[in-house]
């Protein structure tokens, strides 16, 4: 099949797993450190996005597969992301307009 290209090696899979575990430990560490509380949300969102990308690229093989699969996944993913942002903006924006806060 045209989409069947070389996938990552077992060594790569193990390294990705180690990175995923380390990022999770950092996430939990950041959660418990009071000094990070002011930057907690952006830091956690970035770390989460890195984990998401690593799993999708290497374990789901999108990095190696046909780009059409990236389009099939990335299109709805972006749409879903904009739905989340739009709903949050509409809901909290509406509250701010009503309450002036």
């Amino acid at each position, binding site marked *: 099949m045209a*989409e069947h290209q070389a*996938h990552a090696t077992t060594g790569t899979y193990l390294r990705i*797993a180690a990175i995923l575990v380390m990022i999770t430990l950092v996430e*939990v560490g950041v959660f418990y450190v009071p000094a990070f509380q002011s930057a907690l949300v952006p830091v956690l969102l970035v770390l*989460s996005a890195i984990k998401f990308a690593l799993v999708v690229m290497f*374990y789901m093989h999108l990095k190696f597969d046909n780009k059409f699969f990236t389009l099939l996944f990335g299109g*709805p993913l972006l*749409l879903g992301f904009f739905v989340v942002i739009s*709903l949050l903006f509409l809901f909290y924006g509406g509250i701010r307009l009503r309450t002036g806060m």
Partner: protein
Amino acid sequence: MRYDTQEHAVAAAHGHATFMGLDNRKMAFWAFIGSECLLFGSLISTYLIYKGRSLTGPYPHEILNIPFTSFSTFDLLMSSLAMVLALAAVQRGDMKQGKLWLLITALLGLVFLGGQVWEFSHFYHEGLGLTTNLFGSTFYVLTGTHGAHVTVGVIWLLTLWIQALRGKLGPANAMTVEITGLYWHFVDVVWIIIFTVVYLIQ
């Protein structure tokens, strides 16, 4: 009408190539995963919109157990590793390793589900039901939908494992294992987001 049964059997095992040269089952499954992004996007939106708007407790910071959920996250990440190792083994024809990793993936999925059952029953005894407050409703619907997906994944993995035990799974069916893996990894990435949005950002 006369059917060429051998041709049908080959098609059933290998799928059909689209005009782009891509496997039709894999293409359909990526489209399905895309639609799942919208399902979980709507559930996460609902959780975030009602976040902090519960009029009565228990509230998230009073009840969520981060160390326990961190272990569940670790468990699911390791199940994803086991899944790719299962696929790699099946692709190279090492069915002994393939069967082992498929079983390990399913067992890690069962451990995650056991943890979720314990968490839900613990929360219920702490006074958080589906209709207790907005947090309870959105939390149970979001994490419960994810748990239902994990349950389907575990059943799917065990089915594959039984097929492998009966000698009906081999390198020729590697695409079946790859599609199962796509589903399993998607369940994992959804949990990566839930762990951050629900548990860590309180």
